[in-house]
């Protein structure tokens, strides 16, 4: 049943229940339908209703409400997980708090909104809706390909979604990208697989490919939403998050991020030695960014049959003198690229 139809029936049930004859068991069924719809639409409201009915309702209402409370009880403390919410259209995974904050800000989740516990995965999530796309935003918490794969596997047990997108920051290849730009991966290279020989390491990277149809329009984001760069500046300037070494107002004023398609390398090493150009030389001409989770994320998604993307904002160049001030802003830009694609209806499930 569509959400609109469900809301209409909700209104109908609220209007009808006081007038339904009390002796009829039809009333109990209608009450269950009402509360279960509420449970789907707004678990918090369902819990409030159940609490009121359990103490003030008649015998039938009391029984229904008390049983519903039991169903909701395991998730007390944080907002309860409603069973049907385990199905969304898209999962956004961030890795670290600045990246999560950027995603929540871009997708319009209020700073004071508390997350829901996602089953026994140890993770929390925020639910948002954009252009009829139901989105779960969550955070892995630890860096690394193995951790990203484990997080995706755990998430899959709690939430069903046909698409997942890893959104965050990365080191960019100086000369090809600018700080604050966005790189959308066309391939992710797990580059550390290598044969160590006397002549030095022979890299044998493993490649994960993004479905081409998800990439076709990424370089025309400006045309899909000409205002997206202004929106990026706006989100950063008005965000409640304040970082050390955050970009100066003057830097932000001149910030006009661009979107690049390219190869992203993902390994266990945090690159701070300026070695990214060498990796590009040795491994793949189209390398544009480096990070630490994309490969594990991609493999886990492929294993689960989930369409995936990796979108990274460039926070530094992986040099010895790298600063962290652009992590939030760069991720805002990456999240805005995703938001623009979703709004245009271009992020869709894997084709059969």
């Amino acid at each position, binding site marked *: 049943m569509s959400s609109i139809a469900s809301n209409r029936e909700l209104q109908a049930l609220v209007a009808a229940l006081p007038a339904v004859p009390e002796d009829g068991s039809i009333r*109990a069924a209608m009450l*269950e339908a009402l509360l*279960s719809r509420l449970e789907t639409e707004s678990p918090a409201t369902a819990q409030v209703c159940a609490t009121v009915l359990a103490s003030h309702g008649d015998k039938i209402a009391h029984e229904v409400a008390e049983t519903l409370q039991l169903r909701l009880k395991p998730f007390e403390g944080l907002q309860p997980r409603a069973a049907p919410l385990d199905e969304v259209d898209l999962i956004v995974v961030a890795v670290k708090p600045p990246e999560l904050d950027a995603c929540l800000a871009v997708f319009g989740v209020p700073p004071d909104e508390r997350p829901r516990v996602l089953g026994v995965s140890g993770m929390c999530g925020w639910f948002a809706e954009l252009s009829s796309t139901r989105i779960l935003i969550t955070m892995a918490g630890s860096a690394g390909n193995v951790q990203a794969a484990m997080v995706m596997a755990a998430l899959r047990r709690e939430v069903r979604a046909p698409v997942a997108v890893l959104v965050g920051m990365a080191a960019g290849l100086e000369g090809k990208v600018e700080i604050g730009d966005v790189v959308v991966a066309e391939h992710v290279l797990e580059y550390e697989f290598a044969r160590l020989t006397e002549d030095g390491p022979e890299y044998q990277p493993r490649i994960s490919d993004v479905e081409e149809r998800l990439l076709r329009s990424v370089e025309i984001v400006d045309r899909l939403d000409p205002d997206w760069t202004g929106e990026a500046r706006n989100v950063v300037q008005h965000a409640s998050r304040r970082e050390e070494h955050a970009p100066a107002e003057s830097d932000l004023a001149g910030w006009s991020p661009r979107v690049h398609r390219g190869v992203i390398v993902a390994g266990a090493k945090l690159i701070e030695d300026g070695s990214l150009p060498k990796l590009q030389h040795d491994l793949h001409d189209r390398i544009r960014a480096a990070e630490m989770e994309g490969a594990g994320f991609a493999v886990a998604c492929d294993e689960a049959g989930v369409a995936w993307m990796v979108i990274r904002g460039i926070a530094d160049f992986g040099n010895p003198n790298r600063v962290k001030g652009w992590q939030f802003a760069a991720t805002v830009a990456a999240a805005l690229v995703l938001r623009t694609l979703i709004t245009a209806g271009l992020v869709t499930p894997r084709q059969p």
Partner: protein
Amino acid sequence: MDAVILRIRPDSAKSAGHRAERLQEIARALVGEQDAGRRPFEAQTAAFPAAPRGHITAGIFAAEIEWAAKADTIVLDLGFSMRRVRRGVIDKLLADTLKRLLDATTDTHRIAVIVGDLKVVKSQDDLGRVVDTHHRRDRVAVIPTDGTSPRSASGWTLSDEVGELAEVTLDELRASFMQRLLRRRGVFQSTRHDEYLRFHYAPHPSNDLLSELVARKLSELAPDAVLYDGSAPEWLSTAVLAAANIETITAGTVGDLTSKSTSKATLEADVWERLRSLVMTADTSMVLVVPLAKSGSALSASVAQIRTVHKGSLCVLAILVDYHFAPLPKGVAPPQSTIKEFGGERIEVHYIERVHQTLLASDHWQVLAARAGNFVEDMSLDWLSPSPVGLWSLYREAGVDIESPVPKSSKRLPIRWFPQLSKMSDEDALWVGECLIRLAKAELGAAVEDLVFVLPDEPSGAEALARALKDRLDVTVLTVTREEIDRGVGNEDLSLQLGRRGGNRIVVVDESTVTYSTLLKIDRLVRDAVNRSPDLAVVALELPIGDHPRPSYLRALHAWRPIVMADPTSGVQ
């Protein structure tokens, strides 16, 4: 063998036409046998797809033809409505069957062909060509069911009894019509803006008996003209115009009758002139046909409008009347007419059948719900799905109680508040069945002839729904027994039947589902039979508990997650 009866029917109308006992009587009359106590003649029914794709296998019915040819007299019963099948291919199939039957017999055989709305088998039809040109054509008699005279071959004199037995009587027509009368539940806007009705009545789209019923009534009343209201539903105007055509009576709307010029009339100029000229003659009689008479107020307005121009004889034919409109003491057979006073004039109102039409008070819970959720329905509009208010009204009628039976294999507690759809009436079952058919058509974007419905055949289940789908809604239905479902072993008949319908979309139907178990088991049976999953599953009610895998192709008319389970230790049961 003296005689055999071979019934040929489309899949979607296996039960259409005369019942077995009547066919036995016809066969007995044909062979001139008086002793009704003798053992019955052998009979077989052979079915064919209602919407065949391309040609039908040339050898179809070979075994049946070989079997029938052993008897001296063969009753070939084709007494179904050709309007329910794709005619071109089926015409050829029937003609081919008769030809092969004639080829297989000798000059001593006789074949009596019972025809439904083929009526007079025309020489230009495929069947008519065989009847008129086959070298054994003198061995064939054609017996219509509409009361017209049988056409028998030279040298084969049929008794009057044969024609009388073959005729579908008015009462039988009425009963068949009522069996396919759809009664929708919901909250319907009455003609008065502050009045709401609980039901909406309309013949099922496949119910093509109304024109014949009206024609017979018109034949009985013998009016000079027949009228209907311009705002009447299309099913009524279609039936009235068809009936008037059969009886060669002038027909038009009340507005046509009272309009002063042809430019304002909906009729062709010559028909309008004829209608107007009837008004000028004092001794002309007219019949006003209305869909349903309840309080008589709308009827009264129409009568008053007619009386502004027509002073001659007038009576009313209401297809349906409310019980309160024509009340009768218990046990008294309805006379099918009543006298009512309109504007001081007593007018006879004839009717086909009485029904319950309930007015809902404005503070009734159904009206409150419908108004709050915007579910008040306009009776003049076509509809796609039932309103939740209509479904709640159904649950109230059928009852809400502990779920029973719960499949033993599921080892779960029963749901405490479970709508008892297994107890719904035949009228409600017809409506729910039609809702499920419409849901399937909309989901698959397919014509009903292209759908084959597979449903569990369980004596304890929603029998009324199964009966409605099998016998009254003219859809192709295949059933699987509970034993077959639980064993999970493919059934040869299902393979054969689904195999024959390669191009059809497969729709699994059940009245309700909780754990999806039955649907998934039928999925397995279908995949075993035709190597693919069903295209769709439709249920009236989805009440999921737990976290069972849900078929992605499932659609439900109504769904919610139950909360309370019946606890066997609490005494609730």
